């Protein structure tokens, strides 16, 4: 009998187990805790998306909840008075409760260079960051490599207010090029700190790039329609409970978001957020409303 080849699901399980094992070793082993001084950040969140497949037809819309776990560690070094170099590693997992074929796990290395124009939290800062690494997806064809470059300007003119402008370039190279993603995003965020515990932030973002959208297979005669002929990539999938076609299309998304967070203590923060995304392409419109509740704890 031939040994069974490991599937993407097996690899996902193994990587999750390794990441959780390493985390437990660091947190629970007293000697390891004493030796490590680089803080480890653990973030968990649950997020509900009312239109996971970016469908336009009501019959094709599926909502689902994702649970996410991220573990990261970052350290920084002063290069010169105003220059700070930081680097770190992160592991992230995302599990969709109902449509688990969207599950992914990311392993990421991060490097950032920050230039502060002065000293202290109220000095404006420019930050160039790179993050990237392997992605393992439950659907093997979506596994591959992710990369993100960010240029960010942050200013906190008063201790109670901070604004941020960012430009991002994103690239995901997958095993099956159908799932490749290239996108650029411009965003702005305003954060208000009414006290040292509360944070209220709101943001807008404009993204242009690939998105995956799903819809029922069209009747055969519609393959001749002018619209479908403009969609270059289409794939029959089993991501959902019914067969839906996936379309990889270039689209423009405008997103607005608001979040409130509360620091329980110096190492733990709870957050609640809502985001509304409007994605358009050639007269088609995909709407997404996302509610997220998160907990971040630094060890």
């Amino acid at each position, binding site marked *: 009998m031939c040994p069974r080849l490991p599937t993407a699901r097996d690899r996902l399980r193994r990587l999750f187990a390794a990441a959780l094992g390493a985390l437990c070793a660091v947190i629970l082993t007293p000697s390891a805790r004493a030796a490590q*001084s*680089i*803080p480890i*950040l653990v*973030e968990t969140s649950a997020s509900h998306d009312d239109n996971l497949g970016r469908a336009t037809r009501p019959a094709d819309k599926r909502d689902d909840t994702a649970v996410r776990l*991220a573990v*990261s560690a*970052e*350290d*920084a*070094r*002063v290069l010169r*008075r105003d220059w*700070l170099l*930081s680097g*770190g590693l*992160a592991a992230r997992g995302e599990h969709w409760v109902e449509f688990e074929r969207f599950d992914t796990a990311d392993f990421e290395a*991060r490097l*950032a260079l*920050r230039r*502060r124009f002065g*000293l*202290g*939290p109220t000095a404006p*800062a420019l*930050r160039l*960051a790179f993050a990237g690494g392997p992605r393992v997806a439950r659907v093997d064809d979506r596994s591959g490599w992710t990369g993100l470059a960010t240029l*960010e300007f*942050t200013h*906190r003119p008063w*201790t*109670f207010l901070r604004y*941020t402008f960012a430009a991002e370039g994103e690239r995901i190279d997958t095993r099956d090029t159908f799932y490749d993603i290239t996108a650029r995003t411009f965003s702005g965020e305003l954060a208000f*700190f009414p*006290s*040292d*515990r509360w*944070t209220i932030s709101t943001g807008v973002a404009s993204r242009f790039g690939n998105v995956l959208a799903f819809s029922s297979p069209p009747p055969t005669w519609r393959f001749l329609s002018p619209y479908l002929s403009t969609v270059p990539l289409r794939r029959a999938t089993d991501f959902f409970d019914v067969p839906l076609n996936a379309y990889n299309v270039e689209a423009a998304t405008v997103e607005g978001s608001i*979040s409130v*967070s509360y*620091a*329980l*203590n*110096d*190492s*733990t*923060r709870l*957050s609640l*957020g809502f985001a509304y995304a409007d994605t358009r392409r050639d007269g088609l419109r995909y709407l997404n409303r996302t509610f997220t509740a*998160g907990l*971040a*704890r*630094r060890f």
Partner: protein
Amino acid sequence: MRPSTLARRLAVILAALAVAASLPAAELVLTLTDAASAPVVDAVVSLHPLDAPVPAPGPAAEVEVVQSDGEFQPLVTPIRVGTRVRFPNADSIQHHVYSLSPAKRFDIPLHGGASAPAEEFPLPGVVSVGCNIHDWMRAYVVVLDTPWFALSSDAGLSRLEAPAGRYRVEIWHYRLAKPDAYEVTLAESEPLAAARALVLRRDRRPARAPESGGGGYR
């Protein structure tokens, strides 16, 4: 410094100390509370003589403000003018200690476990100290031109001993909009016990708790 100058300075210091010691000592016991009647901790209470000269500072002392577990310890350090302060880093991560306060400007990048030469604080004033890497870290060095000062305890209590006489009492706290000041006359017969209610502002320092989504070093 030439030996004769040193001897002259020592003589002045000893004479000032002798005068101070010869004066009858009086005591001020001050209890500080906030608007909710909770004790005010880490307030600096100082006495500034109104009818007598301030004694000359003694030999320069040296104190430490340590970076430990991502915080400065202690939060508030009252010192006399001319005192030297060291900022050793007891953490194994790097800190970048700085001050932009007019009374003393400096910045010292410090690798884990390292220390740097002590900084002298020659001018009176409040020196706000921070870390340019970890924005939540802060400390205050309160530089005073009087030898009579105290830091309020967990119970909000400050106990000061000084020669009998008329003084201006100054109370500084990092959450006060401006220092509180009033006059008092200390007599040698018995300690003067007083209570003072302070109106404190909201603490708006950057939070240490992690930001949602990580945030990194922004």
